[in-house]
Each structure stands twice: as structure tokens, then as C-alpha cells.
């Protein structure tokens, strides 16, 4: 079993290194095929491990080698495959393999084809390290690795200014959050003496609540950055500058879920500090509503889907915050499938529309792109949470959790957000695929994506449909390590009212979206309509002016500060000192070069100077020797030994 662990872990790395060999060469198909194959083997190994764990096997834990063994600190490169990590591994490998195969077609005309696969596989490797590690340090390594790879992939088309800016924004925001995470890890080590999960969590019950609360806060700050919770959320929407497969893999299924994974992993800690959990849940609910509101009016196809991800992440944090860790993980799994499918479908549409992103400029594409239309619609249905698709089981479960925990405010927020989710998802679908073909006004000739890309996307479609049926098997498996609270509403009547009510509400929202956007006669808004000039529209369109706020008051101030430090401190003080030291030598040399004038008379004078110096030394030493006793008496009187 260890063999499968190592295979699953290192196959993506091998693929990445292989593709990196071609990094500077022209596009070579093999640089895409081999990583995909290696990733498929990783998927197969993960499946074998899943079967093993499902069959009741004990978690596989290996310690590959020691990283640090200094003093009291012992950190190994250790990996564990238990129920939680095998779930994550399956999600990651399935989505990554599909995205890799899809990318072979999507990046077909891109010059940096090879580099893309190198970074993509490296990302998968980092994510695997993150989920498979058995201590906080390994988690952090994977954390940083995915941050780095996501930076490289968001800024993949680095010639575009906006792409590099977005990449930097993502990386820097993650870094700020990582500071919190590091402090959290330090606190864990300082109070428990170890960074291994099982050992640290075993010690934690004996710690004071204050310490635990701080630990939880700081670790959650790290999760906030990675999973783009408010206020560190602006990078996720801007990260859509990267290629669409990147968005599908990173910003739907894997990297952004790392924060949720962290909270799930640290569930013993968060169980001990329920106030923190409530805060997390409240924040999650707020983010869910916040993101959904911004997606209502957005005119960028990928951004709408990005806000949708943000919103669903809020759902996951609500579940995790309320203690329903297995529910959060389940929603993570289901969400990964249909969100990745949505993004890949959007990629198809983008390619067909020659990188046009405004859905108002599309329309009626269902005639030309039949399969993409089917996939995106079904994915949106799953996202909206319609029975019997995957989203229903996971989202409704979260709503149940909220009700059972008597968090009625959170419940109502989530219910309202579910309606909003359905509305904006189908607004997007309706604008793109239904109605009249507005793209003809812009001279675009769309065509369906390559057959193999569609075939690659189909497993995701299947999983988005049937993942709900995994619930019971999944529950039995994962509650071996997670708290096994079953969430059943008290009375059956309440349960049915809730469920049916939610479904009706969602269906009404879908119908409204279709009515508004799937009709003929929609024009491309150009800033003059009454709707666009309403205040609430403007606020939502500008993302509540938060990016503007960050830019004006944080970024600019920091840049000024940095400039001051550069010009005043670094150049004037540090550089001046270093240069000054060098200049001293140079000046001394220049001045004493005068001694070498070649003039005998001058040299003779210098000779006499040297003679006088030597004579003085002789006199001084002679006097010292002659009066040595008196000198010693004076010095000892002054205190020198």
C-alpha cells in the first residue's frame, strides 16, 4: 500500500519534471500526453487506496525521511492516507486528470504549451503533498507550493499586464494570510511540542481555551487567504486572467478548497472552540451572500463562475464552522465536480467565441455547441441543488445542519443565497445558449470543441449527476476520523416542508432567469440603460468598491512607504555606507600615490620621516621599559588588570 501512496504522490512530480524538460522548446504534444498519463496513474493509485480504505483498511502512514531533527523539534516528511485525505486525493486526481486531457486541446495553439503542463503537474504535486501530509509543516510546504504554482499559472500569459498583476495580487494576498497561518503553526508547536496531527491534537485538550482560540484564529486566517474569504477575496475574481483549465483546476476544485481541508483536518481543535466555529460559519454565510450578490450583475462569464465558487466556499465554511465537517467535505467533493465542469464548458465557449467573455455578446449557442450546452446546463442544475443531482444532497444537507444547530439567521441567508445562485447560474446559461444569436453582430463564427475534450469532460458530468448517491458510503467511511453527527431534522414534516420549499424556491428563481434572459430582443448593454445607472447595480458591478478601496488606501500607501524606504534609507544610507567604505580605500590609494612620484628627493624625505618614526618608537619603548613599574602602578590604580 505504501507503494501506491508514493506512486500517487510522485507521479505528478515526474510528469511536471518531464514537461519542464521541454520548457523552452516549441510545442510538443508529448509534453502534454506524458503528464496526463502519469496523472492518470496517480488517479488509479488513489482509487486503489480508496478501495482499500473503504474495505476497512487502516490508514497508511509512512515517514519518508527526516526533514528537521534539531533540539526538541522533529519534523519528518511524513504522509498519511486516511479517510479524509483519500477523499481529497480522489477529488484532486480525478479533476486534474480531466483538466490535463482537456488542456491538450485547449492550449493547442499556445506557444508555451510545454510550460503549461510543467506548472500544472507541479501544482497537482503540491496539492497532493498538502492533502497527504501528516504534519503541519508538510501541509505548509504544500500550501506554499500551490500558492507558487497558482501564481505561475494565473500569470501564465505574462506578456499581459493584467495577468501579471492578477498573479501578483493572488500571491501577495495568499502570503499575507500565510503569515497568520505560520503564527498558528508556531502556536501549535510552542504549546504542544510537535507538529504531527495526531500527537498535537492529543495534547490540545489539556491546553487553555485562550490558547486554543488564538490557534484557531490564526490557522483560520491562513484558510481565509487560500479559500478567499472576506476580506481576502478579491484575488479570486481577478485570477480568471489565467487560462480556463487553470481556473477549473485551481479555483474550483483544489487550491481554494485547501482552506476547507485545513479546517476539516483541524476539527479536534475547532471542536474545542465552538465560538470560533460560529464565527467561521457566520463569515461563511456572509461570503456566500456577498459573492452571490456580485455575480448577479457581472458581465464576465468566468467571473460569474468565480463568484459562484466563492459563494459555495462560504457554504463549506458554514458547514465546517457548525461542526459538520463531513458535510463540508462532502460538499467540497460534489462542488469540485460540477464547478470544474462549468469552467471547462466555459472554456469551450471562450474558445468558440474567440476569447470573448461577455455573455451579452453571445446567445443562441445551443444550436452550434450542443454538447457543451448539455454539460453546462446539467452542471448548473447540480449547482442550483435540484434533486437528484449532486448539489441537492450536499447543499440541502448544509441547510439542514443550519436548522438543526438553531442558526436560523444563517439558514435564511443560505436559503436566499441558494435562490440567488440558481438565478445567476441560469442567467449565464440563458444568455449564452438561448435567445437569438447576438454573436453574429460581431462577426464571430463559433464551433464546438474537439471531440476528445468533450469525452474528457464527460466523467465530470457523470459524477455531477450521481455523486449524491455516494453519501451513505462516504459517511460511513469518513466518520472514522471525523465526528459522526447525523443530521436529521426532528420531525419528518419539517423536513419535507424544508426540502420541497427549497426546491420550489430554486425552480422559481430559474424560471425567472429564463424569462428575463432567454427571450429574443436582448441588447448588449452599453451603459445608458436605466438599470445600469441604478446605485445598487453600480455598487455590485464594482464589487462593493472593495478593490478600489484596497488600491487607494492600502496599496498606494504601501507603495509610498516602500519608495521612501528605497530612496531615503536604502540609497542614501545603506548604499552610501557601503560605497563610502570602498571610497575610503580608493581615496587613500589616490592620495598615497603621491608618494610614488619617482622623485628621489621626495623619497629621501620620506626616508627621514620613517627614520624619525622609528626613533620615536625606540624612545617610547625605552621609556616604557625603564618606567615599567610606575606604569603598572598607574594602570592598576585605574582598574586595568
Amino acid at each position: 500500500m505504501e507503494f501506491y501512496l508514493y506512486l500517487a504522490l510522485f507521479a505528478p512530480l515526474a510528469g511536471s519534471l518531464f514537461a519542464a524538460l521541454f520548457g523552452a522548446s516549441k510545442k510538443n504534444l508529448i509534453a502534454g500526453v506524458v503528464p496526463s498519463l502519469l496523472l492518470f496513474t496517480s488517479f488509479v493509485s488513489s482509487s486503489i487506496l480508496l478501495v482499500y480504505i473503504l474495505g476497512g483498511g487502516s490508514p497508511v502512514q509512512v515517514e519518508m525521511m527526516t526533514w528537521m531533527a534539531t533540539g526538541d523539534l522533529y519534523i519528518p516528511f511524513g504522509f498519511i492516507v486516511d479517510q479524509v485525505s483519500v477523499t481529497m486525493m480522489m477529488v484532486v486526481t480525478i479533476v486534474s486528470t480531466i483538466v490535463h486531457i482537456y488542456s491538450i486541446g485547449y492550449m493547442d495553439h499556445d506557444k508555451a504549451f510545454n510550460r503549461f503542463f510543467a506548472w500544472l503537474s507541479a501544482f497537482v504535486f503540491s496539492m497532493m503533498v498538502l492533502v497527504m501530509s501528516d504534519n503541519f509543516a508538510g501541509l505548509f510546504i504544500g500550501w506554499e507550493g500551490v500558492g507558487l504554482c497558482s501564481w505561475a499559472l494565473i500569470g501564465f500569459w505574462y506578456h499581459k499586464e493584467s495577468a501579471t498583476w492578477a498573479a501578483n495580487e493572488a500571491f501577495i494576498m495568499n502570503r499575507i494570510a500565510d503569515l497568520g497561518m505560520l503564527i498558528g503553526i508556531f502556536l501549535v508547536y510552542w504549546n504542544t511540542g510537535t507538529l504531527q496531527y495526531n500527537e498535537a491534537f492529543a495534547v490540545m485538550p489539556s491546553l487553555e481555551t485562550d490558547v486554543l482560540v488564538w490557534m484557531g484564529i490564526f490557522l483560520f486566517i491562513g484558510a481565509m487567504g487560500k479559500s478567499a474569504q472576506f476580506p481576502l477575496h478579491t484575488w479570486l475574481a481577478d485570477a480568471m486572467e489565467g487560462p480556463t483549465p487553470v481556473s477549473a483546476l485551481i479555483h474550483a476544485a483544489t487550491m481554494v478548497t485547501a482552506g476547507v481541508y485545513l479546517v476539516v483536518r483541524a476539527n479536534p481543535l475547532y471542536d474545542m472552540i465552538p465560538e470560533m466555529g460560529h464565527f467561521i460559519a457566520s463569515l461563511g454565510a456572509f461570503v456566500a451572500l456577498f459573492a452571490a450578490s456580485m455575480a448577479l450583475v457581472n458581465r464576465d462569464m468566468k467571473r460569474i463562475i468565480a463568484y459562484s465558487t466563492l459563494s459555495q466556499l462560504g457554504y463549506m465554511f458554514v458547514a465546517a464552522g457548525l461542526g459538520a465537517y463531513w458535510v463540508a467535505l462532502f460538499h467540497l467533493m460534489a462542488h469540485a465536480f460540477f464547478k470544474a465542469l462549468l469552467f471547462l464548458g466555459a472554456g469551450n465557449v471562450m474558445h468558440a467565441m474567440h476569447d470573448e467573455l461577455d455573455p451579452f455578446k453571445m446567445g443562441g449557442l445551443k444550436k452550434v455547441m450542443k454538447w457543451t450546452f448539455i454539460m453546462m446546463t446539467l452542471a448548473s442544475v447540480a449547482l442550483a441543488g435540484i434533486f437528484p443531482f449532486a448539489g441537492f444532497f450536499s447543499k440541502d444537507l448544509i441547510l439542514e445542519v443550519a436548522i438543526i444547530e438553531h442558526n436560523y439567521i444563517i439558514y435564511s441567508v443560505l436559503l436566499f443565497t441558494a435562490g440567488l445562485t440558481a438565478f445567476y447560474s441560469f442567467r449565464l446559461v440563458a444568455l449564452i445558449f438561448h435567445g437569438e444569436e447576438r454573436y453574429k453582430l460581431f462577426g464571430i463564427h463559433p464551433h464546438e470543441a474537439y471531440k476528445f475534450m468533450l469525452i474528457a469532460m464527460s466523467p465530470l458530468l457523470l459524477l455531477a449527476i450521481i455523486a449524491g448517491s455516494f453519501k451513505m458510503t462516504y459517511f460511513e467511511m469518513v466518520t472514522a476520523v471525523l465526528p459522526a453527527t447525523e443530521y436529521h431534522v426532528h420531525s419528518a414534516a419539517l423536513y419535507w416542508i424544508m426540502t420541497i420549499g427549497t426546491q420550489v424556491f430554486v425552480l422559481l428563481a430559474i424560471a425567472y432567469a429564463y424569462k428575463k434572459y432567454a427571450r429574443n430582443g436582448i441588447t448588449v448593454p452599453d451603459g445608458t440603460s436605466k438599470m445600469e445607472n441604478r446605485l445598487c447595480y453600480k455598487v455590485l458591478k464594482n464589487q462593493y468598491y472593495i478593490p478600489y478601496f484596497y488600491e487607494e488606501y492600502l496599496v498606494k500607501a504601501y507603495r509610498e512607504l516602500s519608495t521612501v524606504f528605497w530612496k531615503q534609507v536604502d540609497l542614501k544610507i545603506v548604499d552610501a555606507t557601503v560605497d563610502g567604505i570602498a571610497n575610503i580605500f580608493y581615496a587613500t590609494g589616490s592620495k598615497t600615490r603621491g608618494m610614488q612620484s619617482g622623485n628621489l628627493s621626495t623619497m629621501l624625505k620620506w626616508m627621514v620621516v620613517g627614520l624619525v618614526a622609528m626613533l620615536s618608537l625606540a624612545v617610547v619603548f625605552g621609556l616604557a621599559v625603564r618606567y615599567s613599574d610606575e606604569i603598572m602602578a598607574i594602570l592598576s590604580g585605574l582598574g586595568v588588570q
Partner: protein
Amino acid sequence: MFEAFAFYMFAFLTIAMFYITVTTSQALYALTALAAGMIFISAFFFILGADFLGAIQIVVYSGAVMALYAFGMMFFDTTRSVKEKHGNKLIISGLSILAALLVVVIFAAPLVSTNMEAFYPATEGVGNTQDVGMVLFTKYLVPFEVAAVMLLVAMIAGIVLAGKKMDLSLTLMDEAELAQENATRDEENKKVLS
């Protein structure tokens, strides 16, 4: 008393002569003053009982060395005074006074050593010259021979440097070249004489 009088007189004369040597601008005066100073220094040697040394001083220094300088002076135009751009007087005088003071301090300190013993004590009953001879040819023989070789080398060097046509070797040339040399020399003589 006699000794003190002699010492002070000769001291005054020597200092005066050497002072003239270093300060005058006329080369001939400097040369003459130097020669006089040498003689007066030999007087000191005689006062100190170093007869041989005194005689050597007169013969070698005032005789040979000064004659050498005089011959050297023939190459230069001695009628006009030597134009010199003098350096900073302050530095020069300052440095020398400082050096003088320091040396005086060093010497004037009571460096009395009670157990100094002579390596080559003066033998009783013999004159200074005999004494010097005894020590020179026994204990200091090797330096003596080396000094002799050095003087030989210096002599040859002086001849080669200063002589005319010193790059030719008459013994190594064969008949034809010798005849050519003679012819050239006769022509030059004719030119000079006519």
C-alpha cells in the same frame, strides 16, 4: 685640557665646513668644504687614538675620494651655480631637528651597561697600527678580502661606465676589423688636429 680644546675646535670647524657643504649653491665651494671637513674628521680619529684610521681617512677620503669627485666635476660646468628648486624649508628643518632631538634623547639617557666586555680588546704595549693589523688579518680576514674584490669591481665599473668606446673589445676583433678601427681613429685625430 688640551684634549678638550682640540675637540671643541675641531668640532666647530667640522660642523662649519659641513654646513657650508649642504647649503652653498656653488658646486666648487661644496667640494672644497667637504674635503676640508674630511681632514678635520681625521683629526678626531687621531685624538681618539685611532692612528691608523686617521691616516686612512686622509689618504682614502680626502685624497682618493675627493680627487674622484674633482675629476667627476670636470664633466659639469662648474662656473655657474647650481640652480635648485628647494623643497619646503619647514619640513626639512623640522624633520632634521626632530631626528636630532630623538637621537640625543636616546644617547643622553644613561645607557650604562656594567658588564660590557670587549670582543677585541686593545693589546697593551703595541701601537695602534700594529694592533689594527693584528686584528684585521686574523679575525677580519674574510671581510678584508671581500672588500678588496668589491673595490676591484667598482674600479672596473667606473672605467666601463665612463670611458669612450667601451663597448668594443679590441682583443676579440680580428685583423680586418682592427685595421678598420685604426683607420677610423686616424681620421678622427686628423679632424681634431686640423
